[in-house]
């Protein structure tokens, strides 16, 4: 008969690598012991984890190692930036498309001043924007527009809910023009 401490270490390893709840039956089969021994080792393991940031949790008909609830915020700080949250470039591109739709990659790039094909691809993959036909200009470039998911993601019920840009799109046009005039003047000076 295996030492229950040693068995608890094996069970610990199995719970660690499994990534999903393991039933006592499964654990007994893998370790070639019986369920009684498994329960004993699980009790021991649970005690050993009392002072840990992790816990042995009974869940969905099995056992699983997981973090304690109180550490969720700090874990979120680590994971959230990694979990493909909208990056700054993505947010910029989404904003331009939202207010200018339908618009082309060239139009997005004209405003952002940097190549934006990667960002457009990401946004399309995440279903925040979609292709909305072709522009009837030479090269027939793809037009992009926002999706339902976009509205959902930004908590909007419809596009009209988008906060107005000072007044309307005309204003943005004007702002751009002003900026460019100022720049042209600055460039000439």
């Amino acid at each position, binding site marked *: 008969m295996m030492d229950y401490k040693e068995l608890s270490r094996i069970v610990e390893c199995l719970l660690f690598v499994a990534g999903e709840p393991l039933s006592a039956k499964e654990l007994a089969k893998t370790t070639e012991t019986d369920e009684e021994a498994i329960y004993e080792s699980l009790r021991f393991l649970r005690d050993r984890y009392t002072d840990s940031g992790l816990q042995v949790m009974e869940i969905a008909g099995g056992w699983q190692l997981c973090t304690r609830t109180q550490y969720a915020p700090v874990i*979120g700080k680590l994971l959230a930036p990694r979990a493909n949250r909208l990056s700054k470039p993505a947010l910029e591109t989404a904003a331009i498309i939202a*207010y200018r739709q339908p618009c082309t990659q060239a139009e997005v790039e004209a405003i952002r*001043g940097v190549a934006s094909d990667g960002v457009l691809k990401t946004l399309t993959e995440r279903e925040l924007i979609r292709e909305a036909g072709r522009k009837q200009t030479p090269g027939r470039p793809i037009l992009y527009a926002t999706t339902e998911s976009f509205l959902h993601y930004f908590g909007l019920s419809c596009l009209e*809910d988008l906060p107005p840009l000072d007044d309307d799109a005309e204003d943005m046009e004007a702002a751009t023009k002003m900026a460019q005039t100022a720049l042209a003047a600055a460039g000439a000076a």
Partner: protein
Amino acid sequence: MSASQTSATLPLVQLTAFEGPLDLLLHLVRQGRMDIFDLPIASLCDQFLAHLAAMDALNLNIAGDFLVMAATLLEIKSRLLLPRPPVETVEECEGAGISPDDPRAELVQRLLEYGRFQTLAENLRTAEYDRQSLFFRPTADFRSLYSLPPRFGEMAAADLIRTLERILADVGAGERAVTSVRRQKITLRMTMRATLGAAEKAGGAGIALAQLIPEPPFALLEIVLLFLALLELLKQGSLIVAQEDFCGEIRVFFVPEAERSSLISNTEEGIILEAESVDK
């Protein structure tokens, strides 16, 4: 090794087990317990050639390396047959070296070095094995928690407007803005509109192409756009381009909207005629 070799005969299969000529040579040296610092080249060469002969069916890419080595071995062998100039052999004894004058020297060094890296590779093999008995948790898929599918209102719509306002504000500063504004400034549509407008204003006399070309300093893009615009407008039939004589002034004429559709075929004829006149 390519799949075409799988049907090969037995000795061939054995040969393909070797990574290359150096690998095979090292094997022969070790198997024959040869002294690497006093290689019996004749015997080594014969064994190598015997192996080579057995792989006549082998793919040329691989055989090539072996053939080069065979040639090298034969060369060393022949040089060893030549009477050697008298050499002071005292320095040879320093360490387990080999005289640099020895025709075998370079081969020996290559074998030594390759052998060393084979040992290092074996060390890595052990490390690989040890490491593979450690199990890590795979990166869990937390996208459902922290990313899409998005929770309703995951991000505030105000972020959008703030971002856009920031971009537009940025347009007013820095080098990046300069490029972005320039690109924004001239679009094909705008150029088309301007060109058409200029032609219309010029009236029946038309406008010289030279006048349409922006004054320097201009961006290359502006010229490209002008020609694209002209081509597009010609295609639409809203402009006609004509040239009086060879290398003469090119003039652009406005076509009133009412005359456009009927003129398209005429325009095409016109272009053909122009081309013919140029030929003459």
